[in-house]
C-alpha cells in the first residue's frame, strides 16, 4: 500500500520536474524558486518572533533590573521594592516538586525498564496512563491539586500543596527521562553485572544508576525549568501571598504568578512584570544551556565509549 502511494507520488513528481514543453519547465523552475523563498521566509518569521519576544522582554525589563530587585521584598503591590520572597517561594516550590517527583519517577522508571516484563500488559498500561497524565491541561491539574492537597489533605493554600501539584505534573517527564537514561545505559553493563553475580539491588545502585546519572541529571535540569515556568496549576494551590514564606505550609507566590498579577491586576505594574519576566527567562535560559552543555559533554562521551 505504501509502495503504491510512493509510486503515485513519484508519478506526480515526474509531472512536476520533467514537463514536456519549455513553458511548463519554466513554470516548474519558478515554483522551485517560490518554494525556496517561502521556506526562508518561514524560518525568518520563526527566528524573528523569538528575537522580538526576547528583545521586548529584555528591553522592557533591563531598566528595572538591579541588585535591590533581587534582594528586597516587594512594596506597593509589587510596583516598588524587589522580588526576594517570590524567588524564595519559587525555589521552595521547585524543591518540593523535585524531592517528590525524583524518587517516585526514578522508582517507576526502574520498574518499567528492569522489572516489568518487556512488552507486558502492566508496563504498557503504566506507560499509557503516564502519557494520558502528560496531556492533562495544567489548569485541570490545578483543580485536582486544590481538591486533593488543599481540601482533602487540609494543606490549604500552601507551598507544599503547590509543590505536590507540580510534582504530579512533572512525574511523566521524570519517568520518561529516567527510563530512557536507564535503557541507554543498560545492555552490556547489565549482562556484565549478572556475570559477576551481582544482585538486582547491587546492579542498580553500583552499575546502572551511575551509568545513567548524566541522562538523569539532564532530565532533572529540564524538569526544574518546566516547574519554574508553570503558572496555571499554582493559581489556586500555592496562592498569591507575596510575603516571605515562614514554612512550607505558608502560601507563597511563584515568579510566574507574580508576572501574571503585575501585568493583569496592578495598574502601572508593567515595568516590574517585565523585570520579573526577564529574571525568569534568564533562569530558564541558563538551565536550558546547562542541560544542553551536559548532554553534549557527558552523553556524547558515554556514546563514544560504547
Amino acid at each position: 500500500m505504501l509502495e503504491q502511494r510512493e509510486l503515485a507520488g513519484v508519478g506526480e513528481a515526474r509531472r512536476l520536474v520533467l514537463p514536456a514543453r519549455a513553458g511548463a519547465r519554466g513554470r516548474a523552475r519558478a515554483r522551485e524558486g517560490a518554494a525556496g523563498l517561502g521556506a526562508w521566509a518561514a524560518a525568518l518569521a520563526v527566528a524573528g518572533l523569538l528575537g522580538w519576544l526576547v528583545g521586548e522582554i529584555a528591553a522592557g525589563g533591563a531598566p528595572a533590573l538591579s541588585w535591590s530587585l533581587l534582594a528586597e521584598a516587594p512594596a506597593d503591590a509589587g510596583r516598588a521594592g524587589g522580588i526576594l520572597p517570590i524567588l524564595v517561594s519559587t525555589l521552595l516550590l521547585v524543591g518540593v516538586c523535585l524531592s517528590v517527583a525524583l524518587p517516585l519517577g526514578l522508582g517507576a522508571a526502574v520498574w518499567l525498564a528492569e522489572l516489568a516484563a518487556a512488552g507486558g500488559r502492566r508496563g504498557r498500561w503504566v506507560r499509557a496512563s503516564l502519557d494520558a497524565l502528560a496531556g492533562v491541561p495544567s489548569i485541570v491539574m490545578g483543580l485536582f491539586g486544590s481538591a486533593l492537597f488543599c481540601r482533602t489533605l487540609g494543606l490549604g493554600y500552601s507551598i507544599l500543596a503547590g509543590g505536590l501539584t507540580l510534582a504530579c505534573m512533572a512525574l511523566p517527564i521524570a519517568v520518561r527521562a529516567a527510563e530512557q537514561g536507564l535503557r541507554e545505559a543498560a545492555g552490556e553493563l547489565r549482562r556484565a553485572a549478572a556475570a559477576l553475580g551481582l544482585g538486582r539491588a547491587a546492579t542498580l545502585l553500583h552499575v546502572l544508576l551511575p551509568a545513567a546519572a548524566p541522562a538523569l541529571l539532564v532530565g532533572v535540569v529540564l524538569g526544574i525549568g518546566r516547574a519554574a515556568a508553570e503558572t496555571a496549576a499554582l493559581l489556586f494551590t500555592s496562592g498569591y501571598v507575596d510575603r516571605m514564606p515562614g514554612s512550607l505550609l505558608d502560601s507563597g507566590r511563584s515568579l510566574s504568578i507574580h508576572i501574571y498579577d503585575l501585568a493583569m491586576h496592578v495598574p502601572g505594574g508593567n515595568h516590574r512584570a517585565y523585570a520579573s519576566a526577564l529574571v525568569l527567562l534568564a533562569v530558564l535560559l541558563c538551565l536550558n544551556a546547562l542541560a544542553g552543555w551536559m548532554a553534549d559533554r557527558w552523553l556524547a562521551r558515554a556514546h563514544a565509549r560504547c
Partner: protein
Amino acid sequence: MTWYERRASCRWSAEAALRWWMRGSAALAGGLVVLVLAFVLAEALPLLLRVGGGRLFTDASWQPTAGRFGIGPLVWGTLLVAGGAVALAAPLGIASAVFVHFYAPQALVRPYRRAVELLAGIPSVVYGLWALVVLVPLLARLRPPGTCLLAGMLVLAVMVLPTVALFADASLARLPPELWRGAAALGLGRWATVRAVALPAARAGLAAGVLLAAVRAVGETMAVLMVCGNVIAVPADGLAPVRALTAHIALEMGYAAGEHRAALFATGLVLLAMVGALVGAVHLFGRRGHHA
C-alpha cells in the same frame, strides 16, 4: 548468625525494599491519572447528579449562583481560539521543518533548531505578558480595547508553533534515506521532492504533530486568560472578546463555593473530554503511521 549470614539477610531486605519502592512508585505513577479524573469527577458529581450534565450545554447563560450553568459560549471560545491558532501555526511550523531539512545551510541547522526549542521553552505567562503589551495595543488601533479573539489566536499560534515545527522535524528525520536517493535519481528539484515525496510520506507524523499542538492550544490557560477579554459570549467577529474554558476556571476558582465550584469542576471535565478526544486521535494517527 555469622556475620556473613547477617550481611546476606541484610542484602535481601535491601533488595526487597528496593523492589517495593519500585512497585509502589510505578503503581502510583500509573494510577495518578485515574486519581486526577476521580477527584475532578467527585467534586463535580453533586451538581451533575442534581441538575444533569446536559444543562451545561442547554442553559442559556452562566449564572451559577442563580442555578444557570450554560458553558456553551465557553466551549465555542476554546474551539475558536485553539482552532484559529492551530490553523495559523500548522503551515508555518511545517514550513519551518521543511526549511531545516531541505533549505537551511548546514551551519544554520543546529542554531535554528536550538532557537525553535527555546521558543518552546518560554513560559506561557511570558507569552501572555508579551501579547498584552505588544499585540493588544496593535489590535486596539483597529478597535479598542484590543483584548479579543484575534489576540488569543495570534499568541497561541506563536506558542504552539514550536510543537508543530519540532514534531514535523522529527517525522521528516525518520523517513528512510532511500526516498531521497530515489528523488535525486529522478532528478527532482527540492520543492518537487518536498511536495511529492517528503510531505506525503511523513503525513501521519505531521498530522500527529498538528493534533498535539491542538492539545496544547486547548489546554493553555495563562496567555488566553491575559489577552482574550474574557466576556462570556460567542464572539461576533475576530475583534470581539471571548472567554475560553481554561480562562473561565482560572478566573472564578478563587472565589467559587458550593455549586458554583462544582460547576467549575464540571467545566474541567468538559475540558478533559476535549483533550481526551484529541489525544485519542493522535494515537489513531500514530498507529496508522506505524503500519505504513
